[in-house]
């Protein structure tokens, strides 16, 4: 937090941090719109509605309704001014003075008046039907390709492993579907699992029986678990051609349409049969870095299915375990519009990636879940919300339908200033109304003040780099999804940084040759370059179209931390002495010493890079053999490296496979792709900085 005494104004409120639930790109904002237009870096908030917040309390207002402003319907918060002897309060958004309900005594003991983030037990008017029990549907690909690459066995194993997390939700229901060239429903209520194979009629499946397909987990837990363990064996002998993914997704959404819920679908190949079949666009050369709309979905099926699914509060998580082109860009429309998530495992092999799949599925199903979720953001007078970025369906002008939320869902909200601010603060409030799997209706409210200041220099002094970059990344990802050209989006990102830094330069009195950067935004050029080098924004041919679409969906959905690691992966130099076991390393290949061991990560794996000239005794204690790909487990050196690897995985909340990469090996290619400070995938950082400096001085 910036030192308030230097900012030249007096504030009336003390800012209480909402944590990750609501973070602003700048803690202050200029008061006049004309000056605000000179701030070209995206301004707004990044909101992670179900982020963990210590001191979260649930307020039950009881017979009096939740305290809200009568005019603009915003919720009361800890920043509201209480007037006329504790009987009225002034709304932050519209300024209206409202009365407290009878018998309500405002005091610090009430969480809604002392905490910036609190949760309300929503009364029955806040929902159109009583909260339903959670329903989960698993869709497995059982074609021979999936069996051969181990997709079926690892996805069944992962689902069986995560089943225990579903059991703690009261009334949770589960259903299982498999698909190859047709869709198969599984009934486990009887003694042995019964399969009901539905051939596709005109490419569309129908639900065979109304009951017995969505099973109560508590009653039939062992049967479901047994089925999940038995599925891979059942299909290992059969030989089934692949392809009816679209039909399977349609069937699963229809199956749980009465209550809504979560569909977790595991796919191994491009869908080629039935509804939603796709063609191999990459081979047909229809995709080109120069053309427009390369990330927009081909065909209407997945978007139309997504829109239907949002009406029944069903969200779809897609796990694509591909060994060939899968048109992830088209498939991603389904998780994107339903608030779900897309995971992609290129070149999936059970032995290598099975742990990651299991960890991802477990993280998703064990996290705090919000069903039937809708989200609304409000800003005080003069601040206008211009755009939302993330995975959702816009239900109404300021109302987002998120279907299912979990702790990592994040929404970026860009704002702009319309009228002059005459109050010392402006406020932003977000409210997420959701049903817990325990069948309660809750509303989580977070409020954040932003100080108003007459000088734009204060905005530079209180900017938050990580939030700004997260918002920039989400904005760029949304622009690509809307159908923009890659080159245009790159130019917009670059221009916003140039114009922002030029504005800062014009405020200071600087000698013409030297470069000056705002203290808080010192690393903005580095992270802008990193953003320009992410897969979807690359102009070079060093990545596949599926990978581009995957990273695009990641940028759109991830929270601040994860975006930071996606943009600029961490690299640690392992040291053997008594000092700290590892030190952060710049991603420059020429900086890596050949006698050192480094640990670096990307979205799919952790790499342990062993230099050419590593001392022989260290090498011997690390590796079982000279060209081994895994580390030994018994020596202190290896333990140190493994500790670093574990630390990397911890921040990412997942389990990643790790590999040992030897310097000079052809396998080093993937490791070198990470070294984005150098001239990989575009300009080197030094060159970029020089170019930026020239452009900034020209701009001023």
């Amino acid at each position, binding site marked *: 937090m910036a030192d308030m005494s230097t900012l030249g104004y007096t504030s009336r409120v003390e800012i209480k941090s909402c944590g990750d639930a609501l973070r602003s790109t700048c803690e202050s904002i200029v008061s006049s719109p004309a000056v605000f237009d000179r701030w070209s870096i995206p301004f707004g908030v990044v909101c992670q509605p179900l982020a963990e917040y210590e001191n979260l309390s649930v307020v039950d207002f009881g017979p009096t309704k939740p305290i809200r402003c009568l005019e603009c319907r915003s919720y009361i918060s800890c920043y509201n001014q209480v007037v006329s002897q504790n009987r009225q309060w002034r709304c932050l958004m519209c300024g209206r003075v409202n009365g407290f309900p009878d018998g309500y005594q405002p005091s610090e003991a009430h969480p809604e008046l002392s905490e910036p983030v609190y949760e309300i037990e929503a009364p029955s008017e806040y929902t159109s039907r009583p909260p339903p029990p959670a329903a989960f549907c698993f869709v497995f690909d059982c074609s021979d390709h999936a069996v051969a690459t181990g997709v079926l066995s690892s996805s069944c194993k992962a689902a069986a492993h995560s089943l225990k997390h579903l059991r703690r939700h009261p009334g949770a229901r589960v259903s299982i579907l498999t698909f190859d060239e047709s869709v198969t429903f599984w009934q486990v209520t009887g003694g042995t699992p019964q399969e009901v194979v539905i051939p596709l009629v005109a490419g569309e499946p129908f639900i065979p029986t109304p009951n017995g397909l969505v099973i109560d987990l508590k009653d039939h837990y062992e049967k479901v678990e047994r089925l999940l363990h038995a599925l891979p064996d059942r299909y290992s002998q059969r030989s089934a051609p692949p392809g009816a993914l679209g039909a399977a997704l349609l069937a699963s959404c229809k199956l749980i349409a009465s209550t809504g819920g979560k569909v977790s679908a595991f796919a191994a190949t491009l869908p080629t049969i039935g509804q939603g079949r796709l063609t191999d666009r990459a081979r047909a050369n229809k995709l080109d870095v120069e053309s427009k709309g390369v990330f927009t979905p081909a065909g209407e099926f997945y*978007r139309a299915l*997504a*829109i239907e699914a949002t*009406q029944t509060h069903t969200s779809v998580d897609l796990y694509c375990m591909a060994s060939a082109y899968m048109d992830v860009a088209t498939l991603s429309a389904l998780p994107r519009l339903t608030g779900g998530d897309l995971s992609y495992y290129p070149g999936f092999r059970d032995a290598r990636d099975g742990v990651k799949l299991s960890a991802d599925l477990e993280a998703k199903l064990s996290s705090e879940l919000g069903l039937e979720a809708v989200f609304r953001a409000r800003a005080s007078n003069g601040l206008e919300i211009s755009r939302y970025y993330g995975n959702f*369906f*816009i239900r*109404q*002008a300021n109302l987002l339908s998120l279907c299912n939320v979990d702790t990592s869902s994040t929404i970026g909200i860009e704002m702009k200033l319309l009228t002059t601010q005459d109050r010392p603060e402006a406020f932003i409030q977000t409210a997420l109304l959701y049903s817990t799997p325990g069948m309660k209706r809750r509303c989580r409210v977070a409020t954040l003040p932003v100080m108003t200041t007459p000088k734009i220099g204060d905005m530079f002094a209180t900017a938050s780099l990580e939030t700004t970059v997260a918002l920039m990344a989400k904005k760029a990802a949304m622009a690509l999804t*809307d159908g923009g050209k890659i080159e245009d989006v790159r130019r917009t990102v670059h221009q916003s940084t140039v114009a922002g830094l030029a504005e800062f330069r014009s405020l200071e009195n600087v000698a013409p040759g030297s470069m000056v950067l705002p203290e808080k935004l010192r690393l903005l050029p580095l992270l802008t370059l990193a953003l320009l080098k992410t897969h979807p924004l690359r102009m070079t041919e060093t990545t596949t179209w599926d990978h581009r679409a995957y990273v695009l969906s990641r940028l759109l959905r991830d929270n601040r931390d994860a975006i930071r690691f996606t943009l600029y992966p961490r690299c640690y130099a392992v040291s053997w002495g008594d000092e700290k076991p590892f030190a952060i390393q710049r991603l420059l290949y020429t900086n890596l010493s050949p006698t050192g061991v480094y640990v670096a990560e990307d979205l799919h794996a952790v790499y342990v890079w062993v230099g050419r000239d590593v001392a022989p005794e260290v090498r011997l204690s690390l590796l079982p053999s000279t060209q081994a790909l895994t580390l030994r487990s018994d020596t202190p050196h290896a333990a140190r490296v493994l500790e670093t690897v574990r630390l990397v995985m911890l921040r990412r909340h997942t389990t990643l496979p790790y590999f040992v990469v030897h310097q000079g090996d052809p396998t080093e290619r993937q490791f070198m792709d990470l070294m984005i400070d150098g001239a990989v995938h575009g300009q080197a950082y030094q060159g970029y900085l020089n170019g930026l400096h020239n452009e900034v001085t020209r701009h001023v």
Partner: protein
Amino acid sequence: MLEAFAHFPLNGIINPNVTILQILMYCVTWVCAVFLLFFFFQLGVLLFLSDLEQDFINPITFCQKLNRWMFPEVYVTFAASVLLMLCFDWLGFLVLMVPLIVIQVQRIRNNAVKFDSSNIFIHFGASKKSTIIRMVMYLLLFFFILYRIMSSLLVRIIPHDIMDQLRS
């Protein structure tokens, strides 16, 4: 009835085949009526849009109800422009019809003809503006074609000598 349209410049240029001219002019009258219909249709779309803003209708129902009529509007505009081109009516065609054709072609190229329920709130202002512009153009076109029809009728009804007196 065919003499009624003798005022159209076509008559002065070539010797018209009477049957073709008759059919042409008959179609033009219908086009006039269609443009009036389109004016009211755009007005209806505006009402739907304001309903959407006030949350009386949700975007999915909105798109289901309106998307059927969006492409027919474009096709009829193209047909009407072909007809007016055949009439060699330069004022009407160049000043009024060509901007309308340009607008429709732009809409097709940008995939903005049908409403898209996931994007509708993002481009809300632009949708409203586009609807109002087209509404105004349809109204102007309706009155212009009506003027042409009426003036050619008047030429036939009022005898020649009085017409010359009025002109001089």
